[in-house]
């Protein structure tokens, strides 16, 4: 009999549509698997089994009536930073441990309208600040490829759930690499859409000018299908782009002949792990073998993108996290007066990394420093954007590594923020420029997954998905499954 948890979105879609399986069976299979694997993985903060099964029943009914949406009946997971009415949304933080939203994020409504089944809320670095998922108030997530290693972050729970088949697909959020980096480290597909492609309404803000919601899946085709459902304008998000949503699945022609692929010199420098380099170079050869043309390019300002990121994102975060003051929701610890109540609540409610970023953000905006840090960073951001503008005058996509190294051991970098931040060196420039990129599995390095990052023009998700899909069909790297999950299902 078929292992229902091995199905991709498109695979499940076919079986459901042909009534060979029901959504309830599919959902129950995933809930069972979650039960078995969670003690080792900790990918979920909360599993909402009852809700999922109720949604599955409704999806089965809708499918019988022939009214089902594209995602109907397929069990998925939401990063716990997406607002869900009636279901706690913690952002991986003590300060929101008991916060129960009274409204749905726009993406959650869109998934519901399409008939999606939500298995639960996934673990994450607190307020999406981190690259290892060790900054969660609810414990670290373990990489299914090697339980002693991190799955990446901040959407580490979503990536792990998908990699270990605890969900067919998941949504994550990406501010500086938080979808692509964990996708690379867990051997999954992670898409960061163009800034504004997907509504941020109900995404609890970390850095508002960078945050973007996107899918984590096991195939590029699945990412295209999910993006098609969640993308599009939203009157509640002023930064959501008012552009029509193309048929992303139709763009997956498999034909990338004549495509110009930019290879940025700066993405293959000293910091890049030699094994990762080999895997990514091999991936570029595959693209060439499919008829694409490799073009050496330069993105000279990308070396400053990380510094820019660590000025702009903490500044925005400082303001975005000011609302957690113990007055309206969340943790609240009484003090001698209101000011001590604020300080005690935030001291107890926030973890070390969040506090570091708040302090850093306060510093770069404080009187006398604005021009030297914040304004300067915004100017450099312009330079980063111009680099990409110039490059996309010559090439159609840009390809390089998603991360400098494969998954590293849990605890290896927790005391060294700067080393931790360097994980995002190849992903951050894309957020700075507001463009789109997808990380696709490119094979293994010493048994650990490596991701190749395909970067595209603003709103040109179609092309990067087409390249990723062609690559995937050619190599089948995405079919590799973590050994531990194989044992469990055996």
């Amino acid at each position: 009999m078929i292992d229902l948890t091995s199905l991709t979105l498109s695979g499940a879609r076919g079986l459901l549509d042909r009534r060979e399986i029901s959504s309830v069976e599919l959902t129950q299979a995933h809930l069972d698997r979650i039960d078995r694997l969670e003690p080792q993985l900790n990918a979920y903060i909360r599993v909402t089994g009852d809700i999922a099964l109720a949604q599955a029943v409704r999806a089965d009914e809708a499918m019988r009536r022939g009214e089902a949406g594209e995602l109907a009946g397929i069990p998925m997971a939401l990063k716990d930073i997406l607002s869900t009415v009636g279901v706690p949304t913690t952002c991986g933080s003590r300060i929101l441990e008991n916060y129960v939203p009274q409204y749905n994020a726009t993406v959650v409504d869109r998934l519901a309208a399409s008939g999606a089944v939500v298995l639960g809320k996934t673990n994450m670095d607190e307020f999406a600040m981190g690259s290892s998922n060790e900054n969660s108030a609810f414990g670290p997530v373990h990489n299914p490829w090697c339980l002693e290693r991190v799955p990446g972050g901040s959407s580490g729970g979503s990536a792990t759930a998908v990699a270990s088949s605890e969900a067919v697909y998941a949504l994550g959020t990406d501010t500086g690499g938080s979808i692509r980096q964990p996708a690379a480290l867990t051997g999954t597909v992670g898409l960061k859409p163009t800034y504004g492609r997907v509504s941020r309404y109900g995404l609890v803000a970390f850095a508002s000018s960078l945050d973007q919601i996107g899918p984590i899946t096991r195939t590029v085709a699945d990412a295209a299908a999910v993006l098609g459902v969640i993308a599009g304008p939203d009157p509640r998000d002023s930064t959501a782009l008012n552009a029509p949503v193309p048929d992303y699945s139709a763009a997956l022609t498999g034909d990338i002949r004549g495509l110009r692929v930019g290879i940025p010199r700066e993405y293959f420098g000293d910091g890049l792990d030699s094994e990762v380099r080999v895997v990514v170079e091999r991936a570029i050869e595959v693209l060439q073998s499919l008829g694409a043309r490799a073009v050496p390019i330069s993105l000279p300002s990308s070396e400053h993108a990380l510094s820019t990121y660590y000025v702009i994102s903490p500044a925005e975060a400082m303001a975005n996290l000011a609302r957690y003051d113990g007055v309206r929701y969340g943790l609240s610890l009484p003090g001698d007066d209101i000011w001590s109540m604020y300080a005690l609540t935030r001291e107890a409610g926030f973890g070390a990394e969040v506090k570091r970023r708040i302090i850093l953000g306060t510093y770069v905006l404080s009187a006398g420093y604005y021009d030297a840090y914040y304004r300067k960073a915004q100017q450099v951001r312009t330079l980063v954007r111009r680099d990409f503008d110039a490059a996309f005058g010559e090439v159609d996509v840009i390809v390089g590594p998603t991360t400098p190294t494969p998954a590293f051991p849990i605890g290896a970098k927790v005391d060294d923020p700067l080393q931790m931040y360097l994980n995002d060196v190849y992903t951050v420039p894309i957020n700075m420029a507001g463009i789109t990129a997808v990380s696709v599995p490119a094979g293994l390095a010493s048994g650990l997954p490596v991701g190749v990052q395909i970067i595209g023009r603003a709103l040109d998700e179609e092309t990067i998905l087409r390249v990723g899909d062609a690559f995937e069909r050619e190599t089948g790297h995405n079919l590799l499954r973590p050994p531990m999950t194989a044992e469990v299902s055996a």
Partner: protein
Amino acid sequence: MPISRHELEHLCRLAHIALDESEMVDMLGQISTVVDHVSRLQSVDTEGIEPTAYAVPIDSVVRDDDTELSWPTEAVLTNAPRRYGDFFEVQSIFE
């Protein structure tokens, strides 16, 4: 450029974050390292470069002045740590 302890205390006050002694020491070192790193931006020539504050070039997104139903009061207050009737209650501002 290391951050002074005095400066850090001021930042904590602005950010409403209390730190105990050992956290203060860790934070001093870590913040200084990161500030040192981001200070490299100072060397970039940005003469005449416009700052980018928005990721995508859109403008003037507005809505019509139409009213929508507000939330039920219970929804507004349901997560309140402390309430008094339908008010949010906090410790006195003045002490």
